[in-house]
Every structure is written in structure tokens, then in C-alpha cells.
């Protein structure tokens, strides 16, 4: 009976071949570490955010006179409304944490290199959409930090040449952040996640064309690939369990630790909070913005600091595979970059003072210098490594890769098992 139904569907829709191609026979490198779990986790958090968000929207009211009260209504009167809201608010932080780890893994292992540039760029687009969605969602509770955060960020569009003022009021729907801003942010906050879902589909189609990279950085021979299901489904679900434990610790025990106290005060356009800080996931970029004395320069620097990742496939000119694993200089740069991000985050969090300003400037210079110097360093490092003799482990892998490629000329992609 079941096979009859499946046959019926298969003649009209490629169900079985889809399951085969993308799950049960989808070839995945067997040496993937747990750092490769984070793409799946990001997908999971996206679904979680959409699910909790849909239910929150049933009780939320986008109106400057009602939205703060409607959040309190959700927190106090709606059955398990507090759970929905804390899951959604914590979920935003979890989303960024997972995405940043996902990106760090790509940078560390050099997964952005050919033939995976399109994966990296679609990912970059998804990051921008995610940032926009999170930023707009933060206005919705209509607290002090919501209001002033939105005011500060929309103000940045004053940097637009010639039409600065017009663009800012066009974005806000008025001369200041108000009811039109709130309603349009709510509308877009509901729309963008579905654009993200579409982007994820593109990201996955690209992935299933080029297949996963792996820690060695070399396309593995067919024998080293294993089917995604059941091996990586089981591994991803185990990773999901660990993730959920950490996530639920925050949801149930420390949900307020991720929320700014000032956002429990209703928005008051007449009173500026002493210290306006964005959510933690924007802090490094906010620090870069503040480190440049000029508004236009700051906005350009901040935009560049997010977009510069897209150039990685061209900036990294080394042909040594395996990303940072076999490349001591690049590995050094990776760790400097991580520390630099943390320093920028700290600078973005603290109120500006002479010391933090200087710290922020140094960290900003280091941030951009790393990207600018990468082409030269990676070239030089490659020459140095070849001169010094590559590790035998790597030589072996590269040799087996070449042998494999010579054997089957037409199937050079990792995981093509034909």
C-alpha cells in the first residue's frame, strides 16, 4: 500500500529521488567535525523564531500607545506568553551566536574558497537580512532602548549623499521615530524571515551542488564520503540536544540577562537614556561606527566591516588547502581577528571615554588591516610553506586528491560518487 502511494506520488513529483539525492544518498565527508553542526542549528533556530513569532504576533499590537502594554499582556496574561516571548528574545541571540560560529568555522577552514564562493555570498546576504530583521524586531516592544536604538540607527542614513534628511524621514515615515515607523517595522519584521527562508533554500541548493567542505580542505575521494542520513542526521540531532540545553538554560533561568533594563521603561521621546547600547550581536560593528570621528566615514566603515567578508575568496590567495589548519600565519590571523572582535564588542558596550575611544580605534585599524594585508600574507605564507616542505599528512592528502582527479577527470567535485 505504502509503495503504491509513493509510486503514485513519484510519477507526479520527484519525492523518492529527492530523498535519495539530498538525504539517504547525499554524499558527505566523513571527517566533518562538530563545527559543521552550526548550519543545521541556524536552520532550526530560524524555524523556532518563525513559530514563536507567529504566535506572538497574535497577541502583539503595533501601535505606540498599545505595544508596550501588549508585551506586558503577553508576559502576564497570555497562557505561556512569557515562554513564547523569552524563547523569541533568547532565540534572536541564539541565532546570532550560531551564525557567528558558522561564519568563524568557514573562515577558519577556508570553506569560502572555490567552488563555494556563492555559498559564502548567499550566506552574507542572509546575514544582512538577519541583521535587518533583528534590528526591526527590537523596536517592537517600544521600550526606551527600542526607541533610541532605532533613532540612532535610522539617523545614520543622514550620511546618504545629497538626500540624507529625506531618506531618513522616508525610512521613519515621519521626522522622528513614531507610529508609522513602528507599524512598518512590524510589517517588515514579519516579511523578512520568509525572504530568509527563500535565501536558505538557495544556500542549500548551492551546498548540494558543491557539497560540504571538510576540515582537510581537500575534496575527498568517493570512499571517504558517507550518506547524510543516517550518519549526519544522528550527529546533527545530538548537537541539537546540546544546543537546546544551553538555550533552555537561558530561556528558563536567565532570560533577563540578555535584555537591557532600560527597555522595561516605555519609550519616551523627551528623555534620552544616559547610555544607548545596541544588542550584544551588533556591538563590534557599533564600536567601529563610533571609532571614526566623521559620521559619513563611520557609516562607511561600519558597512564595510560587515560587507568585507564577501571579498574573502579573493583576498585569500593561498592555495594551501585546509584553511587555518595547515597555515600557521593564517591561523594566527584568525585568532587575532577573534580577539579583535571581542575587544570591539567591549568597546561598543562601554560608555565612550578617552581610553575606550583609543582602544576602539586601534581595534578598528587592526580589523581592516587584517583584510587588507591578507592577500600579501597569504601569498608569502604559501611560498614559505612550500619552501619549508609541507607536512607529510597534507602531501599525502593532496597526492590522493590529484590521483583521484586523474582517475575520474569528469567528476572532480567533492562527494560526486558516480
Amino acid at each position, binding site marked *: 500500500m505504502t509503495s503504491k502511494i509513493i509510486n503514485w506520488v513519484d510519477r507526479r513529483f520527484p519525492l523518492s529521488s529527492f530523498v535519495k539525492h539530498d538525504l539517504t544518498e547525499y554524499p558527505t565527508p566523513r571527517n566533518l567535525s562538530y563545527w559543521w553542526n552550526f548550519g543545521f542549528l541556524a536552520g532550526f533556530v530560524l524555524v523556532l523564531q518563525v513559530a514563536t513569532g507567529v504566535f506572538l504576533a497574535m497577541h502583539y499590537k503595533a501601535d505606540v500607545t498599545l505595544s508596550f502594554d501588549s508585551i506586558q499582556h503577553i508576559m502576564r496574561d497570555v497562557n505561556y506568553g512569557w515562554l513564547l516571548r523569552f524563547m523569541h528574545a533568547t532565540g534572536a541571540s541564539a541565532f546570532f551566536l550560531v551564525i557567528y560560529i558558522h561564519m568563524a568555522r568557514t573562515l577558519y577552514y577556508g570553506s569560502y574558497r572555490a567552488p563555494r564562493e556563492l555559498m559564502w555570498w548567499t550566506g552574507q546576504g542572509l546575514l544582512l537580512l538577519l541583521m535587518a530583521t533583528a534590528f526591526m524586531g527590537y523596536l517592537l516592544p517600544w521600550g526606551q532602548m527600542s526607541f533610541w536604538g532605532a533613532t540612532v540607527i535610522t539617523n545614520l542614513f543622514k550620511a546618504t549623499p545629497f538626500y540624507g534628511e529625506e531618506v531618513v524621514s522616508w525610512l521613519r515615515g515621519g521626522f522622528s521615530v513614531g507610529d508609522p515607523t513602528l507599524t512598518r517595522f512590524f510589517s517588515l519584521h514579519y516579511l523578512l524571515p520568509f525572504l530568509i527562508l527563500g535565501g536558505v533554500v538557495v544556500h542549500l541548493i548551492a551546498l548540494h551542488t558543491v557539497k560540504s567542505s571538510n576540515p582537510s580542505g581537500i575534496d575527498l575521494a568517493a570512499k571517504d564520503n558517507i550518506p547524510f542520513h543516517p550518519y549526519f542526521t544522528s550527529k546533527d540531532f545530538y548537537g541539537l540536544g546540546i544546543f537546546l540545553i544551553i538555550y533552555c538554560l537561558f530561556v*528558563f533561568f536567565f*532570560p533577563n540577562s540578555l535584555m537591557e533594563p532600560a527597555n522595561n521603561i516605555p519609550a519616551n521621546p523627551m528623555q534620552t537614556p544616559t547610555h544607548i547600547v545596541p544588542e550584544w550581536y551588533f556591538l563590534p560593528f557599533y564600536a567601529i561606527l563610533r571609532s571614526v570621528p566623521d559620521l559619513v566615514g563611520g557609516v562607511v566603515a561600519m558597512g564595510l566591516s560587515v560587507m568585507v567578508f564577501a571579498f574573502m575568496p579573493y583576498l585569500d590567495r593561498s592555495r594551501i588547502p585546509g584553511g587555518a589548519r595547515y597555515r600557521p600565519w593564517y591561523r594566527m590571523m584568525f585568532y587575532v581577528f577573534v580577539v579583535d572582535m571581542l575587544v570591539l564588542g567591549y568597546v561598543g558596550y562601554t560608555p565612550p571615554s578617552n581610553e575606550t575611544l583609543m582602544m576602539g580605534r586601534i581595534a578598528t585599524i587592526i580589523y581592516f588591516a587584517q583584510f587588507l594585508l591578507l592577500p600579501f600574507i597569504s601569498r608569502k605564507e604559501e611560498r614559505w610553506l612550500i619552501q619549508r616542505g609541507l607536512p607529510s599528512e597534507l602531501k599525502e592528502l593532496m597526492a590522493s586528491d590529484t590521483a583521484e582527479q586523474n582517475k575520474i577527470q569528469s567528476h572532480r567535485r567533492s562527494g560526486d560518487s558516480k
Partner: protein
Amino acid sequence: MKNLIVTLLLCCAASQVWAAEAMLENIKVDTDLPAIARGVDDLMNNCHSCHNLKYITYLNLAKLGIDRKKIDEWRGDQPMDAPLSGLMSDEAAMQSFNLVPPDLSLMTKAREGGASYVYSYLLGYYNTADGVTHNRIFPATHMPDPLGMSTTTDHAQREEIKKTAHDIVSFLSWAADPHEQERYRLGYYVIGYLVILTLLLYFVKKQIWSRLK
């Protein structure tokens, strides 16, 4: 290089957030009903004349288990689902204090330092030598010393005031997050469930991967 290191160290030491928190007396609020009941009683006597709690209704208090007779006394002829609005009108407040006293429903969540901040603030009043009352936590405050900490010198009475402040803050913490205890209770089950589930998933993963040579 040396300068840089010194600067970095100074930055850590100069963090204003730590300085402000160091002034607070860190407390752990009570979550038992008697303490919250004492707290709401003290609040109705000391704070309610000026402050609103617009997200808390008399019905909420009744459901929590506060003595019904007291509730009826407080609400007078207001309905049960009326919020705990203060007795002072906004206009009168503007005249006396030049500002509308803030709503207290979310007070313990709306300040850096939370319940400890509110507790330290309530007890932070002192008199200078020339007889002016100040608050060491919030110097710009417009609120007159509500519990009389600045004028009390007797040790036993001061302890009594501290206890009152502690009860009020305990009630305010409940008011700011009424589902907190329920959240913790549920949280233990959820985490317990997830730990067992994750262990099982680990064994499933191990079992499946053992098929590989």
C-alpha cells in the same frame, strides 16, 4: 607597546558599570507568600499614595493568595480587576514633585542592578550636616525619604526599616515577573528532559557511526 598595555588595563579598571554596582547592597529577594504579602501591605502604606502599579490588579493579588479582607480595604469601591493606581493625580504630582512618579510594576527589571538597586535606593537616604536629605544611589531623585531611613538613628528601628524595604522589594520582584517561580519549576523539568534526550541521541549517534569501518 607598554603604553598600550597600560591603557588596556586602565580601561578595565575605569569601567563605570562596575563602580555603580559596587555601591549597591546585593540582596536575594524572598519568594514566599508571607514575605510578598507583607511587602504589598507595606507598599500600600508607603508607596501607593503616589505610585501606580498599572499591570497589577486586585484580582492578581487575590489569585496570589493575599488576604481578601485587606484587598477589599485597599480597593474600596473599585472593581476587582482594577489596577493598583496611585491615589495622587498626575497634575497634583506635577505640582508637588515636578514629575509624575514612575509606575512600579516593572521597577525591579527596569534598573541596572535590579532588586538590589531598588533596595539600596530605598535605604540610600541620608541627611547632610546642614539638614538636607540626599540619596546616595540616585542623587537626582525627587522622592522624599519614604521609609524614614535618613532620620532614624536607633539600630533596632533601622533594622526594622531594612526588613520593610526587603519585603517591598520582594513584592515588586513578584510584580515585575509574576511567572518567575513557575518558570524555574518548569525549567528544571525541561532541562532534565533535554539532558536525558541528549544522552539517548548521543548513544544513537554512536551506534549508527559504529557501522563505519
